[in-house]
């Protein structure tokens, strides 16, 4: 258990000057959640990378609402190290879904960034590959299926017909 705590404290110390809030989740003792501002994501990732803390597991996005009820996207960068998981988290308001790429630090993040771009409409500044990863080539622009507001293509029948 002390071993786990050491890892978590280590991660916290690397991110101490960037973090806005640090949470140790109660239901999982091997985790730490570090909240940062959207513009600090790259610095935070670089801090962990430069200290050789873990490896990027993936980037997750989810559609949620803030405490005052405004819709926003949660963006989580999961890092695994030994028995622990360190998550760097930021929130992007729906009307300003912009974040910097981390591909120049961790090249293999490109597939995860493409996924966030495609399914959540997050604009990732400087990401090397903006081509479609998952959705069909003729999927309509500006429709992001993982947003809660998406319940299906309204003209699905027509769209299917056209694509044939």
């Amino acid at each position, binding site marked *: 258990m002390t071993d786990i705590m050491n890892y978590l404290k280590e991660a916290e110390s690397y991110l101490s000057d960037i973090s806005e809030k640090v949470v140790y*989740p109660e*239901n*999982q003792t*091997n*985790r730490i959640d570090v909240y940062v501002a959207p513009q600090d994501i790259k610095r935070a990732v670089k801090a962990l990378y430069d200290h050789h803390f873990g*490896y*990027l*597991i*993936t980037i*997750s996005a*989810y*559609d*949620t609402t803030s405490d005052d009820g405004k819709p926003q996207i949660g963006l*989580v960068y*999961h890092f*695994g190290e*030994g*028995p*622990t*998981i360190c*998550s760097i988290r930021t929130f992007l308001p729906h009307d300003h879904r912009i974040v910097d790429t981390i591909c120049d630090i*961790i*090249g*293999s993040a*490109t*597939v*995860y960034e*493409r*996924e966030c771009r495609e399914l959540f409409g997050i604009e990732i500044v400087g990401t090397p590959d903006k*081509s*479609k*990863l*998952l*959705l*069909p080539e003729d999927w309509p622009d500006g429709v992001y*299926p*993982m947003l809660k507001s*998406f319940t299906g293509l309204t003209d699905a029948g027509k769209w299917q017909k056209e694509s044939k």
Partner: protein
Amino acid sequence: MTDNLIDSNKSQKYIVPIGPQHPALKEPGHFEFTVEGEIVVDASIRLGYVHRGVEKAAESRTWTQVLYLVERVCGICSHAHGTAFIQNAEALAGIEIPPRAKVIRAIAGEIERLHSHLLWLGVAAHEGGFDAMFMYSWRDREIVMDILENFFGNRVNYSVNIPGGVKEDITPEFAEQLRIKLDFLEKRLKHYLDVVNDDVTFRARTVNIGTLGKEEMTRLGATGPTARSAGITRDIRVDRPYSGFDIYPINMILDDHGDLNARFVVRLKECFESIRYIRDVLEKIPEGELSVKFPRKIPAGESMSSVEAPRGELFYFVRSNGTENPDRVKVRTASLCNWGTIVSAVAKGHKLADMPMILAGIDPCFSCNDRMVNIVGKEKNAQLWTWEQLRKYGINYHAMQEGFNVSDCGIEQLREEK
């Protein structure tokens, strides 16, 4: 066509797009290799042909329904998906499953690993033209499938897990049958390991092919047997032990060569370790209940954890909003991050003829990935090959290098006529 390509145009760049439909790999994926003469200089991939929107579908189903849904993400490692999801749900609900259920989950996971590795061994051997090995290993895989069918009532999607525990108990009769089958499998696996280590032709096709060093693998975030074949100590069963592995630990199998041969060796040795683990654990499986009550509604919160699927780390991120349905289920499969290693590093500088085995070497799973990577160069003269053509090209190329003329002996034609 094949022979012409070997002989001519050594300096010209070609793009060789392969797929998405190709009869040999059995799953849809599209690759484009840019070649200069024999050597691949660029590679890309595009997935998405089997994208089914599982993550979106999960948001409108109950926790129990999602368990059965995610088991169908992958037909090979369905138990790994189910376990990864349900252990997050259990963490959110704040329940601890009984030790006997944990151990049964671990045993099921190791049986699944055996069948997955044997399946892969066959496919990878087939891509290199070692069809006898393919047929034998798939015959032996049937024994594992029989175990799964006898135990859980199904060959694939066997649904060992239920929310809060497991469905079936391990009876003494089943354990006895299992031991006999494992003894036989162990003998066969020893033979395969001998072939991989000693067979001259097999070694010629695998040793020092597709080599990637430890540092680069770490940087690219490789996982599973692909990472362990380069000496990276990364195994979720050991690092973050989950159901069963926290009670009875398992050993990590490592190799430091980092080439294609090492990926064979690591997977085969993992099979031995799985067999040892199952035998040991059957002896001391704890008595007790199989499941505990699982609530219909789960308190709001979030949970993230991984399991070691046969291909590597399978990561699930689950959020609950306090209702009967999950708010978000995020899946990161092992194949996806291993694609990165192949596309960005391994493929370049190798012969086109080695591509089928190199690609098969990471044990790609398309329905897991459901994403596609594009390897399109800017040069013209693109020539469309199917995967089968590439596989034949690879086999013929290596045969010709050894002085055999494959077309003369007529084996391939005979096979096509049939």
